[in-house]
Structure formats: C-alpha cells, structure tokens
C-alpha cells in the first residue's frame, strides 16, 4: 500500500508505523503526528467534522511533501495519510510518520510536514455545531 493516501476509512497507526519501519533497517527514530477530531472549536461544541479534498491535486501535494522531506531533512522515509468524509469526535484525521537514523531529523521533518500539509494541500474542513454547518476558513 502507498505511504501517501487520501482515504475515507480509518487507518491503524501501528500498522502504518510498521510499514514505514519495514523500508529500512537503518531507521533509529520514528516520530508520529496524529491529528484527531476535537470536541470544541472557538468555544463552540462540535458535533462532527467533514473533510473534502481536491483528490488528484491533494495526493500530488502530499507526494511532493514526502519527496521534499526526504530530500531536505535527512530522513529515510515518510508516510502521509489524510482522511476525508464525515469524522466523529475523537476519530483520527491525519497521520504523518517520519523515520530517520536519528530522532532530531525525524522530529524536524514531521513538524515541517504537518505545517506544509496545512499550507499547500487542498483539503477543507466543515464543522457541524448546534448552530449549523460552517466551512473553516482560517488555519488553526
């Protein structure tokens, strides 16, 4: 399975980590960022979230982030997975795994990758509250 995916169904963090680890025996540190659905946003109770993407472009951008992370951060492998569709509170939204020989490179690459994902990947979040549905415009 590809290490870069946009998908409706949930993912298993441990299975994805194993898949990244399997890419090289030189990996000595793995950093995982897992984004999950929180129950409050700007003081409003959230009932559920829904994510929409521009699928072809979003996958292209995630692949671009992976390639640049491997090239610029001295990491061995990276996985980026983002879910779309309706997501209940507490469920997984996004997973980034950075694997390197040493932990510092993995931490730096992982932090850069989630920021870059938010900046260049055409994915949009809709929050459902008691007051109705709102497409979120600004980055958190």
């Amino acid at each position, binding site marked *: 399975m590809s290490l870069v995916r946009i998908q409706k169904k949930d993912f298993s963090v441990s299975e994805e980590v194993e898949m990244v680890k399997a890419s090289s025996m030189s990996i000595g540190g793995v950093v995982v960022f897992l*984004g999950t659905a929180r129950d409050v946003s700007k003081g409003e109770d959230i009932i559920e979230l829904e*994510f*929409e*993407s*521009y699928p*072809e*472009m*979003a996958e*292209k951008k995630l692949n671009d982030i992976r390639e640049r992370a491997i090239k610029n951060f001295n990491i061995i492998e990276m996985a980026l997975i*983002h879910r779309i569709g309706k997501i209940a509170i507490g469920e997984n*939204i*996004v997973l980034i795994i950075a694997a390197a020989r040493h932990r510092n490179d993995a931490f730096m690459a992982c932090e850069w990758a*989630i920021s870059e*994902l*938010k*900046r*260049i*990947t*055409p*994915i*949009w*979040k*809709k929050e459902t509250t008691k007051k109705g549905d709102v*497409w*979120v*415009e*600004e*980055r*958190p």
Partner: protein
Amino acid sequence: MITIKFFAMLKNKVGRDEAAISIPGQITLMEFKDILKKEFPCISGFIDKSVLISVNQEFAASGTIIKDGDEVALLPPFSGG
C-alpha cells in the same frame, strides 16, 4: 472548453461542483478571472480576495496561460490537517 471545479463553501454558493465554459483562444488567468466573475457573480468577492486558483492541479499566478482543455479549480483557504 475549460472545466471549472468548485470546492467547499464555493461549491455551496455556486450550487454545483463543476462547470464548463469556452474561452477565445489563450488568455491569462487575470483575464479568466474577469470571465469567472461575470459567469458566477455570487462568488466574485471570493475570486478577488481569498481564493487561490490552480490550473491542471498546479497553483497558478495571474500571468498563467489558460487554454482549451485545461482544468481550473477555485480553491478556498485550506483547512486540512
């Protein structure tokens, strides 16, 4: 024909996720924006301000050339992650 894609709140405002319009030969994105504003007046404010535009899935600048067969997407501010 040019395929135009709408996402998130723009899709809601326009009432559909895709449209097709024809253009005279090759034009710049800046010129194409004027056509879009006339065709879709309900989102003209967004086109002037917060919307990024991609052409064939790559971010476009005001001088980017648009030609027959291109796929143009109007992208509201991203909120993934």
